């Protein structure tokens, strides 16, 4: 490191080089921010006219060009609900096992296998999850194109993220609390229930919010699991169109659907921003809370 720093060019060139780098760095950042503002401006400009309370509640008409996105919002929330129903118990169980029970009981081999598998799952492209969900849920388990299939496919995608954030939250609880619980004669199970999970709750909720954000943004995994049908779903075994799929369909397959697509995109982004703000504030609260008691 030191050798490198000694071999720098003489002062006069260095000064001008300094200015070049400074301007490059400013220009690069301005470019990035500019692109962001351009994107956001376009979304607002094209989508804002379409927004109204009726847009949120009405059913789509004329294959989506007119009317609203009421049934689509319902399908989206149902798919999300199914996904959460599967993610919560599986994710919590795995995270609790990884952070509280696995340390020395299984010799580490199982734990390593679980971690490796989760890391790999986190990298699998969403379209591959779509293929998987189509083969497993729609065909093998006979659920067809349905909210069940879509939600369960999403759950598989959300699990790695939810588990890693939950595990991090549990590991962040100070060991003194575990020792205190043990000294009081609490069983591991009740310590978990009365001390550790409540202490980690904000982190777990934040992780949950991040996972929900990821699920709401997902399109590719849903096209051929929960399907395209845009009418109000009557049950969970009906096909339902998610908001992201609606945006895709409006812009690609329906001429004159652009405005609806932009309106739906605004609604989707508003939901995501809300969810990520909740996640951020919960994380901050958790971090602040940790400093005081220990």
């Amino acid at each position, binding site marked *: 490191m030191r050798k490198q720093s000694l071999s720098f060019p003489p002062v006069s060139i260095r000064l001008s*080089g300094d200015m070049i780098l400074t301007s490059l760095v400013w220009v690069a950042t301005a470019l990035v921010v500019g692109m962001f503002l351009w994107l956001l401006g376009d979304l607002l400009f094209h989508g804002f006219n379409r927004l109204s309370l009726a847009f949120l509640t009405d059913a789509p008409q004329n294959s989506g060009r007119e009317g609203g996105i009421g049934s689509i919002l319902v399908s989206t929330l149902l798919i999300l609900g199914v996904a959460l129903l599967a993610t919560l118990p599986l994710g919590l169980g795995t995270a609790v096992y990884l952070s509280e029970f696995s340390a020395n009981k299984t010799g580490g081999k199982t734990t390593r296998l679980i971690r490796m598998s989760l890391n790999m799952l986190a990298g699998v492209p969403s379209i591959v999850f779509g293929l998987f969900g189509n083969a497993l849920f729609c065909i093998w388990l006979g659920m067809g194109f349905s909210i069940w299939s879509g939600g369960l496919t999403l759950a598989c995608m959300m699990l790695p993220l939810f588990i890693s954030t939950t595990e991090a939250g549990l590991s962040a609880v100070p060991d003194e609390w575990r020792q205190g619980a043990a000294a009081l004669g609490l069983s591991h199970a009740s310590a978990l229930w009365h001390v550790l999970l409540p202490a980690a709750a904000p982190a777990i909720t934040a992780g949950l919010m991040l996972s929900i954000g990821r699920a709401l943004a997902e399109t590719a995994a849903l096209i051929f699991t929960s399907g395209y049908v845009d009418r109000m779903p009557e049950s969970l075994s009906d096909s339902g169109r998610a908001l992201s799929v609606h945006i895709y369909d409006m812009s690609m397959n329906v001429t004159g659907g652009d405005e609806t697509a932009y309106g739906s995109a605004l609604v989707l982004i508003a939901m995501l921003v809300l969810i990520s703000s909740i996640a951020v504030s919960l994380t901050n609260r958790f971090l602040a809370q940790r400093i005081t008691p220990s």
Partner: protein
Amino acid sequence: MIWSRHNTSSLARADTALTRVTGSIALAVAVLLGLVLMLLIKESGAVLAEGGWIRFFNSDGWYPQSGEYNLLPMLWATLAASLGALLIALPLGVMSAVFSRFYAPVWMVSPLRRIMMLLAGIPSVVYGLWGLTVLVPLVGSWMPPGSSLLSAIFILALMILPTVSLTSEAALTAVSPASLQGAAALGLSRKGIVLGVAIPEARAGIMTGALLATMRALGETMAVLMVAGNVVQTPGSLFDSVRVLTANIALEMPYATGDHRAALFASGLLLMMIVTLLAWLAGRQQAGDERGHAHA
């Protein structure tokens, strides 16, 4: 974790049960990966068994009706789009990270990070929508038809930029203050400190971020599908319409049957192998980085 072994027996029994239950849940989740792989292999079995892997690379083209399943043109398109996006996003992302770490006025740092996080959270289908309605006509007015490899590269670059920038910023923040202070004490200019000390020391972290970003670009479906034009051909220029592997799956899955469907699952398998390879490289990079820090 310190636990007393002298719990009353009923409590201990509850603990054993809980360990067993959570352990089996964890195992079930781990088996999920195996299940994904198994299903991909099983569903693509029909094609793999008949002509072997070689059929995906030496057929005359992608003509599912006549049983020709050459994946190479789409594989090249996938690689070209991802590498092109990385070529744009890597310098821009690193420079914006350098900006917020070393150049930005204090009040700009946190809004910048917020913007990056927002950009990272925008759904790919929204990038696709914007690309389709704004970027494609723009490229098209310069060099028709507009739906092209170039548009795909631009959109992908915009999508992976936050990943590159946020990971680079984290890597730059992790550079030890001692080396920065030492460099400053030696009278190095800001440029000298950035290029001579900070970036070399953060290199491994930046590389890991670049690999993660490439993984995201390779696996991206919607945004590319919406802007690339989706003509199956080996890209000859930046302005050619191309179809990437992921887009091919999304476009043909709804109606594919038999061998055709199996071929799509095989291309999913191929995609997963490429991404896993990159993830493995990123993991090694990270491990090497940690070892390096331990030595220093």
